């Protein structure tokens, strides 16, 4: 098998041009899935026996929490690829993933608090899962802050990639926190290897929402990566042509 596509993917220009064709499809499918999942979950799924209608926030809360954790891995793996193979694009994806992951972590914390009030009677407890999600939020913020703190872009890339890698030691703790500690947060309901402890009529809309969130994440990540690429490569010929600007002067062409 040829690895050419992989090496080509490392070129920001190639990435930008390829994704132009994918983006509308990605966006359309993800929005469609999200719409179907929302209407199905919020409108047609049955009420929960104990929680009534308030459980329906699961359709936002769980997919957001999934992606908040998966997004950290995506960020850390991209950072590792950048550190090991010195791929420029990989660092760009890493930087793009950080604010999206932070936003998703915030959404899952916020919806968790809103859900906690009717079910547990409190917005916030220092429960293992909630606290570790808050730490995940700080990890994201730390990576963002560090990547922006360096005057040289490459140093910021490498430093934040290293920090993202070091931070991965906390992620398994977050995954397992509900199983290891007996706390207020319920244990995982969705399991890959055994039967889930959730009724199929609630499960299918949830799966639809999770799939929709994954595609939405990919869409937003690609969009943000493209923006960062344009910001970084603004001196190059192809970006100037893309922006409809006159061809670069000799000095900037030399730099590009």
């Amino acid at each position, binding site marked *: 098998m040829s690895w050419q596509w992989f090496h080509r993917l490392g070129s920001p220009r190639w990435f930008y041009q390829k994704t132009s064709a994918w983006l509308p499809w990605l966006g359309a499918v993800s929005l469609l899935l999200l719409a179907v999942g929302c209407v199905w979950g919020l409108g047609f799924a049955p009420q929960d026996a104990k929680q009534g209608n308030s459980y329906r926030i699961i359709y936002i809360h769980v997919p957001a929490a999934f992606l908040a954790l998966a997004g950290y891995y995506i960020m850390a793996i991209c950072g590792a690829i950048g550190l090991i193979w010195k791929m420029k694009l990989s660092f760009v994806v890493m930087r793009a993933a950080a604010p999206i992951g932070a936003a998703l972590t915030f959404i899952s914390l916020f919806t968790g608090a809103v859900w906690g009030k009717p079910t547990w009677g409190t917005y916030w407890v220092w429960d293992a899962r909630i606290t570790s999600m808050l730490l995940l939020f*700080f*990890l994201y913020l*730390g990576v963002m802050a*560090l990547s922006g703190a360096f005057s040289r872009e490459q*140093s910021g890339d*490498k430093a934040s990639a*290293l*920090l993202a890698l070091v931070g991965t030691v*906390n992620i398994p703790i977050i995954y397992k926190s509900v199983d290891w500690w007996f706390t207020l947060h319920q244990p995982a309901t969705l399991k890959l290897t055994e039967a889930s402890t959730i009724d199929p009529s609630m499960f299918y809309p949830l799966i639809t929402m999770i799939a929709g969130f994954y595609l939405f994440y990919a869409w937003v990540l690609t969009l943000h990566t493209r923006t960062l690429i344009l910001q970084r490569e603004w001196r190059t010929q192809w970006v100037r042509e893309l922006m409809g600007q006159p061809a670069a002067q000799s000095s900037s062409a030399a730099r590009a």
Partner: protein
Amino acid sequence: METEQLATPLSASKSSSTSNPADTGASGINLSSAKSIPVANPVHVPGFHTLFRTELTLAVRRRSEIVNPLLFFVTVLAMMPLGIGPEPEMLARMAAGLIWVMALLATLLSQESLFRGDYEDGSLEQLALQAQPLYFPVLAKVLVHWMVTGLPLAVLSPLLGMMLNLDAAGYWPLMVSLALGTASLSLIGAVGAALTVALRRPGLLLALIIMPLYVPVLIFGTGTVQAALDGYSYGPQLAILGAILTAAAALAPLAAAGAIRISLEN
């Protein structure tokens, strides 16, 4: 600045502004007579033992840097009962957690200067240039950092526990867990200190990136004391602290060495 650095290769920029110039000069002279890094001859870069001894000598000479984190630790703990109320039962319940959090902050505060002086006067670059892995110099520096910050905190902790009305059953677990835990904190914090050494004002950024990584140590550190107070065996918690320390000793200096190389490129 140039001449001052030449005269005192390691200590010039590291000595705190509060120490008087005579003190700095004296330590510089003593250093160059005791095997310090000769700037003129970068071939004689020190190995682990030499660097360890140099760092320890420097740390002992700059007494204020040893005493300041300890004073901070004690002062803030003395403030706590004023803020939350002096009821003995409440203090007893909070003592272990308060002491642990203050140990964490004291470590964090002293961490910023771990590589700073060496970065500013260029000796960090010399260390990175030598043939041996950067792992050992980093480990030597972290070890000295722990010996002058974490270890005294651990030794002092039963006294503070007594002042905060901690039950006597908690003294020994508190001391051992602090000794093990602060070593992990020094190691983990070294990664953050190395990542931010090239930045002009890293203080708050360092706290932001390192605090989340400190949390497991804090959980199991306070867990040790809590288990002892509740009359359970605290061996498992200590074992986990030991495991964290082992993993941190193996991996953190590697990450810090990588971070130093990144910072030197900046």
